[in-house]
């Protein structure tokens, strides 16, 4: 299946998965914790790239922040491609050096993300890992990150199936749809 680049279709897909602003979920948290462990990084996130914001479905190693603005360079850029998006030295990388998380107090210096690509080809967000110091990242590591992101997508698909099942059941009972 070819990747769908149309932004409104992508946002529509996010609505369909109905994941935004949902409470923390242990299955996603297990994946981010595992990613942090595997790659020995302090921060791992499952993010959803919404219209004007980037919302965190799971955040390992990051407290007090649930979402950030959709500034280019990090997750907002990572959802534009199917392959993992790697920034080894964010402060000198032209793609990221102006991003507020890089230039600002947060001091992000390493970023690697694998897009959360659905079966229909929509990239909803990322599984990303973050470090405050530069770091080298290899193709094999990127491949493992990609496979972890596929597990995240599997979880999202499972949730969607469950949602659809509930919706279908609701229709059978002739109740108005929830949305």
């Amino acid at each position, binding site marked *: 299946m070819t990747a769908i680049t149309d932004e409104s279709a992508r946002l529509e897909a996010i609505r369909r998965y109905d994941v935004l602003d949902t409470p923390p979920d242990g299955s996603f948290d297990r994946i981010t914790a595992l990613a942090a462990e595997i*790659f*020995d990084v302090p921060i791992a996130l499952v993010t959803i790239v919404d219209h004007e914001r980037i919302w965190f479905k799971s955040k390992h190693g990051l407290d007090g922040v649930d979402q950030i603005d959709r500034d280019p360079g990090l997750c907002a850029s990572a959802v534009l491609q199917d392959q993992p998006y790697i920034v080894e030295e964010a402060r000198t990388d032209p793609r990221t050096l102006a991003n507020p998380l890089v230039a600002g107090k947060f001091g992000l210096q390493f970023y690697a993300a694998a897009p959360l690509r659905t079966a229909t080809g929509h990239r909803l967000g990322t599984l990303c890992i973050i470090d405050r*110091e*530069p*770091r*080298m*990242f*290899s*193709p*094999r*590591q990127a491949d493992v990150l990609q496979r972890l992101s596929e597990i995240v997508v599997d979880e999202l698909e499972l949730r969607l199936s469950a949602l659809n099942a509930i919706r279908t059941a609701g229709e059978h009972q002739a109740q108005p749809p929830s949305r």
Partner: protein
Amino acid sequence: MGQRVVDALTAQLSPHGVTPIEPSDWRLVDEASRTVFDAPELARTVRSVVDVFVPAYAHAALVALLDDRDELRIAATAHRARDRAGVSSAAVGRRLERHDAPFAAAPGHRVEEFPLERDGKDFGLLLLLVPDEGTPRGEALLRTIAARCALALDNARRFERERNVALTFENAALVSEMPAIAGYRFDAMYRAGRLDALVGGDWYDAFPLGDGRVVVSIGDVVGSGLSAAVTMLNVRQTIRGVAQVNPDPAMMLYAADGTLRSQFPDRFVTAFVGVLDPVTQICSYANAGHPPPLLRLADGSLQQPAGHNAPLGLGLQQHIDVHHVTLPVGSLFVLYTDGLTESTKDVFEGEARLEAAVRDVESGAGVARRIHDAVLRGHSRDDVAVLAVSVQHTPPARRWRFDPRWPDVARRVRDQLRAELEDAQICATRMHDAELAFAELLGNALRYAPGTVEMILVRQDANLVLHVLDKGPGFQFSPRLPSDLYSEFGRGLFLISQLVSDFSVERRPGGGSHARILLT
């Protein structure tokens, strides 16, 4: 028989066997003595000697002294204004010819020669040009005054030699050269409290190690004078020596304490020793009763790195603690001795002035002197040493941060390291050794400290130093010390130390190990 005793006595009183001088002339001898013994310095004494004789007793005079090569060199000359006889003062410093022509050739004169001797050893010659008819006062007086002059000259010579010894010692004791480390500026000032001395019991020191670290020390031997300076030099050299084997601040202070205990049991010393690594910007330090240094950060705030032990030399079996402080870019680290804060006689006032001075001082060349001047404002009778370290930027280095558990990233690092080493024009053998050492260290990190490793290659002048920092349990290794068998076990550290010029591992303050390999 009786006459012989008299002769003998006479000979003793007047070693040249001449009749003793008239009692009325003793006044003249006293006067001459006062003149020639007036100043301790040799230059002034030789001047006085020739002036004593000319014009009162001789038409011209010349003093020549034996130099290091046993040659007589003219030290001073004088002649009567109306005489052309004698040797002009322009001759001072040159070798005395046995019959110096201008001296010998004066008609109507003869030359009286008086060997200058002490304890039977000649050290020079006094030549007087007297008229043929003799001096108005007689030979005996001349000889007596000449003997006094010999004594004065010998004293002056000894004084000069002692002062030269002291000067040589003091020059050796003063640290003239500060380390040249990219991004760092070391600036120091020292002033001895006593006016006639160049060094006292205070010291500062800063010198680089082969692996790029810099050892700084500052201290104060309690007491004053040359003997305090001798103790100081011994303590400072002890610290220097230990730093070459095991640059651990506590070890250096233990050794200094041992030096005091065994050689200077009545002295005690306060000292601060720091080992700073420009690569990590961490300064590991130990402080034995010394005033804590001041650290001014880039935002202008002041910190006082805490923690100290008792002074050295008290005979305490104390455990000396090592602390760590980070010297970030833009900071100014100021070490000083208490002469800076205590000579105001009000320690609190002194410390307040110091803090203000460090807060306000402009860093750059001469910063130590400016701090000194701002605090003391001209008056001090104590020794003072100030050592200031300005951190301008981190030294240029190639850094790799990676997880060696992933073979492809480790290979990439190895290839890039090889390229860097080739760029540094390292020879093939060294390259091979460096790669082996790299592999050993990575292997160790994999086995004992799995996770992220930071590797840093620093080129300082002709030196190439490879740093490997891991996050494992941390251990210490120095190839020059008996190894800790447990930590050494299976780590191939001995192999590495055989391959490279210098290799050591220390525990990092936050956990983990820091290995340094000197590749060149």
